[in-house]
């Protein structure tokens, strides 16, 4: 049983041959999957959603400033209370000038970002020019809208540099798409927003902006139990993205707040001097 997605077909031109070309069938229209043959379709979906249990335990943020877009994220994956990994790549490289962030279901984000990358490349080949950030985010938002209510969990930001300059969009699994200058997504986002909003200026250098991004992620990992691991910071400039740093937040804590030597140690030193 195939899902009827004719209502959501994009008007994006394909190779120009018309309706169906076997090679492009999987990509030219909204992808559709075979659905299970079951009597209790609604119940099955609910069980599937419960099994995946989407809980956006993460902290990602992105902001636009004078020199481009700064994108940062933590690297922890959690299943309820258990930390399943401290080294997840949450910043996904869609193509050399566009980044996507991952919040929500890892599989969902990875698959749909890669799918978006494919669509962007096809757009380039069809139109002989790069797709804009606005266009790419719209493709993703429309794809996600057609799967509304099916339990996908995707809270992503698409950041890139196109002809109009830096672009940043927030896209989520409800099909929502927002254009903005500053976003943070995930369970640690309130803490990141606090640091980001109070330290933000449009006229920052790349170093100042990366330090602000790193600090925001660090503070979110401190307060939020579901965020942690490594704070990665990427910068998107006119020539594409570049990874700036990946610092372990355990070490960052003692870098920002060093522990003064304990009184006992000082006393022992004095005793030895005598």
């Amino acid at each position: 049983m195939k899902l009827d997605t004719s209502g959501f077909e994009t008007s994006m031109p394909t190779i120009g041959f018309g309706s169906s070309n076997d090679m492009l069938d999987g990509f030219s229209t909204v992808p559709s999957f075979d659905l299970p043959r079951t009597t209790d379709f609604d119940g099955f979906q609910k069980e599937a959603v419960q099994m995946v249990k989407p809980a956006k335990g993460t902290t990602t943020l992105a902001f636009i400033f004078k020199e481009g877009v700064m994108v940062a994220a933590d690297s922890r994956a959690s299943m309820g209370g258990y930390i399943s990994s401290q080294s997840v790549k949450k910043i996904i490289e869609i193509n050399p000038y566009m980044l996507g962030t991952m919040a929500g279901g890892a599989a969902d984000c990875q698959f749909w970002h890669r799918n978006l990358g494919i669509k962007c490349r096809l757009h380039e080949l069809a139109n002989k020019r790069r797709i804009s950030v606005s266009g790419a985010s719209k493709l993703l938002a429309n794809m996600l809208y057609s799967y509304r209510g099916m339990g996908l969990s995707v809270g992503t930001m698409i950041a890139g540099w196109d002809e109009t300059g830096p672009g940043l969009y927030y896209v989520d699994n409800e099909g929502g798409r927002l254009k903005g200058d500053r976003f943070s997504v995930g369970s640690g986002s309130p803490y990141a927003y606090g640091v980001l909003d109070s330290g933000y200026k449009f006229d920052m250098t790349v170093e100042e902006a990366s330090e602000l991004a790193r600090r925001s992620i660090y503070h979110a990992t401190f307060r939020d139990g579901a965020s942690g691991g490594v704070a990665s910071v990427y910068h998107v400039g006119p020539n594409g993205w570049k990874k700036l740093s990946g610092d372990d937040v355990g070490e960052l804590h003692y870098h920002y707040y060093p522990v003064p030597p304990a009184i006992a140690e000082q006393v022992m030193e004095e005793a030895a001097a005598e």
Partner: protein
Amino acid sequence: MSIFEYNGSAVVAMVGKNCFAIASDRRLGVQLQTIATDFQRISKIHDRVFIALSGLATDVQTLYQRLVFRHKLYQLREERDMKPETFASLVSAILYEKRFGPYLCQPVIAGLGEDEKPFICTMDSIGAKELAKDFVVSGTASESLYGACEAMYKPDMEAEELFETISQALLSSVDRDCLSGWGGHVYVVTPTEIKERILKGRMD
């Protein structure tokens, strides 16, 4: 998440040669949000008996206050300190009194008994005692702690080696738990001294 995972905790106690060590994490949280990083989970009942409580933080504090009260009464009446085995029975009885509306915590009790023999035990929230010869664990990180202790524990360790072992076991287990960690608190008790140490851990 269950009510036992509301505040998050990790507690472990280990037996050594004529000594014991008891350790806990320092986080107090409200589900995923961290509120404090200096929460006291281990309490001294007297110089040779310690209790650490994991579970709901309000019950941890209230139960500790109740137990201190009962022990002080005992001291007045008997003119001596409680033995660790007796104290464990007291805790078990107090928990079972609330069988149908229990304190939502799991205690870990550690003490030095007669002849400097170390004693450890843990209980569930309604007072079922579990005595062990090597180590006991409790809290949201308990499964990781079981694994880490099983791998790192050796019998008859001296105080310094016991401290290293329990610290490594605690830190590596809480690093796999979202709800506990943010430092560690370790007491190593021998017949002659009590050493209290704070551990520097990952603060994420």
